[in-house]
């Protein structure tokens, strides 16, 4: 659908965004703007991390749930928006 493309394009056009990846519940990438090997790496690793983060939050308080995950590193910031079935990963370089 054009909506999907439009949304992803909008996100990608933000300042400093390096790449966007949409991953399904099993960690298989659906849409990506990065090259294949990087996509696969990001999808696999971040999927596992998100699962872990989610289970951590729910262990502490079962009523709670993970809404957003931001990982700030020296070079970029990785943002993960989880859902029941999908995962949206955005990598941004915040500094100039």
């Amino acid at each position, binding site marked *: *659908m054009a*909506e*999907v493309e439009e*949304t*992803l394009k*909008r*996100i990608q056009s*933000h*300042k*400093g*965004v390096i790449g966007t990846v*949409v991953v*399904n519940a*099993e*960690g*298989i*990438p*659906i*849409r990506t703007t990065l090259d294949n090997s990087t996509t*696969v790496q990001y*999808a*696999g690793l971040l999927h596992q991390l998100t699962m872990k983060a989610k289970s951590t939050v729910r262990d502490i308080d079962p009523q709670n749930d993970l*809404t*957003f995950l*931001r990982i*700030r590193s020296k070079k970029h*910031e990785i*943002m993960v*928006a989880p*859902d029941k*079935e*999908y995962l*949206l990963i*955005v990598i*941004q370089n*915040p*500094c100039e």
Partner: protein
Amino acid sequence: MEPVNMESMGHPEIYPLVLTTKTQEIFNCRIDEDVTDEQPYKLINKVDIFEDLRNRAAVSDFHPVKKIVQEYPGNELLLVYDKDFKYGLNFYLIGTEEGKENYLNPPEVPEEQEEYKEHIPEDVYVYKPPVSKPWVSLGSEKEIEEESVMESTKQITYMISQKRSEFGAPVKFSDQNASSVKDAYIECTAYPDKNFTLKQLEKDVSMQVIPQIKDTSTQTEWTYPKNATTQYYPREFSEEEKETLKQSKPLVDFLNNASISVEIALQQNEIMNTFIDDWKYLAEEEGTFGDKTDTHLKEYQSFTDLHSPTEKMITCVSWHPTIYGLIAVSVAVRLSFEDRVYFSGKLLLQPSLILFWSFSDPIHPQLMLESPDDIFCFKFCPSDPNIIAGGCINGQIVLWDITAHADRIENIKAGDSRSKKATLKPMFLLEPESNTEAMYIRHCAVSSIESGHKKVITDIHWLSDTFEINRMGSVFENRSGICCQLVTCSADCTICFWDIRPQKPLTPQTTEKKKEESIEIPFDVPSTFLHLDLSWKPLSKIRLSKGETSLDYCPTRISLNEDHLLYKTEDKTLTQSKIVKTGEMNPYHNLESGMANLLKPIDDFCTKFFVGTEDGEVIYTDWKMKKDSETGRLMPKKPVSIHTIHDGTVHTVQRSPFYNDIILTVGGWNMAIWKEGVMTGPLLQSCCAPKMYTSGHWSLTRPGVFYIGREDGYIDIWDLLEKTHEPAQSQNICITMITYIKPWIFSAKQQFIAIADYYGTLRILEIPWTLSRPSTNEMTSVNHYFEREVKHLEYVEQRKNIREQEKKEMELEMEKKKIF
């Protein structure tokens, strides 16, 4: 009162006694007179003791042992003087006959046997198995009895049996609900009875804390170690699947929801970087302005050639690219043109040299390269530092190959340590042992006199090994991987490109010439460039003509696009690795191999370069030749831009080591900074200085710093971030004109600057920390500065146009007014 005996010590017959002096006198047992060490005992009559007892009664010393004395069977008792107080008192009485006998006649043999008997049990330990003894009750069975459970009442037993007649009869079973038939069962229902309810008031609980340990073991079958690998590929969706998924509604909804929060997060990052430490960034900036503690160049060493008869000046300085502490200097005689002609006879006898100085020996140069005439500029070949090309005063290019002496100069440090071990001698008598003889190395090849330059060569550069050019000036890729082309400019107004590889002979004349002029070459000169010697012609010649008149531009310095690569320290490792490669099979000894390959032309290569002239002009021109439509000859293109900025000879045209398009030109009484591509003028032009500027160089580590040498021996250090109207610092180095400045980096902490002066002294100074270390934002700040200046120039241009317009309008109005 019982007499105290020494039963506890194993001698029940001994009764210690205290005998006072009076008693001793009575019984004649005075210490050291009657009773001595040799005879410490005395036999005393029983009767005497009784008499004493009667006389003195309780006072008598024998009173405690009265009973023993009475019971004593014999007549005489033995009294022994206990000198060592073995039994506690100064005398002791032996109360039995047997004891007396034992004392007087001590049995020796049984004692020894006793000693032996004592030893044996110690040596051999005899194992005695434990003997079972009857159990001794200590009261524990009572507790056990209390705790044990035993039946208190007798158990009731019932025996139920069938009628005898029914034994063995077939049995018929049927189901029956117990509750439906009356009296089919008897039950004793449990009911809470208060009499028997026990409230537990105390509970005995014992706990033991143990760590959670789990012990399991398995046995595995271990046959042999085996390498195993796994190859995997990630699960991916095919294109169709991706398409179908894209269309699915859940994905659309998810993206719509997720993108909201993602965009918030993205915008947060764009607004502000929340993780910067503001204090840290503040501190860095302060460091550059206020710190002026140690900003002077410190003198490290200086070199002078003491052996030359005439006064020389240094014309060019170059650090050895790889060896630490080695610097090469070209010297020329300090005479004007007329004097040179006048003394030409004398000058012919003295060799013109390039001297190699090392930090370890300030008196003797390590190597001396001979050349036919004074060298005014020279350069080490970037891909092989054993090849040196120099430009002579007579217009020839001279090539040296010092591969044979490479190990000599590499191991200079060893010589220095040897000299340190020598006995204490005055400094001028100390000479390093290995390098005493002056090594004169003859040049390898010189260019052809007729076809080369006619006047002094003012600048020489090696072309980068990434490209090469042909006769037309077109650029091709360089497959040989080494620097094989040179460019020179000379006072005869030409710029020549040279190739060091053997050129295919164009006409048979040249071969004949070669046969005629076969000069005997001395055996110690390497034959690397034999093919070039005396017949070397330039690849192409560009004449910088001013136009119709014969006055041409006289170039003094040129700066090509790729030169900056030679300064960057990161590329030092690259050049070193290249040099290592050439060590095996020196391509310079095998120059013909690369010639036959067809080379690919490089498109959009910038063939323009900057030239500084003798009259103070800065020219930006192209080396590519174009074919003149009329004559069909190859003609050099017209210069792109010419600016006359300086009032004297431009002696420095240098690209910044950090920016490829920023050039520094120094000449006359001022200096200018240019940006390649900005044709309107220099970005920065300094005002006239009080003294003439005679040399200049960019700093190798700080983008906004450069050094300028003056004619009065001062060096001006300019810092573009501090002041742009005057130098940041000025330091006096020597008393005479500075002819050449060359900084060099040895390590992150050690940076030197070589300053050569007119009197032939080369000084090495150390650059202080503040001048060598750039601040964090220096590169960006200098960048900003240059951009601002470019914008300023553009603005000035615009204003000029506006002013022109205004002027025209004003003139029109004036004319209109005149009419009326």
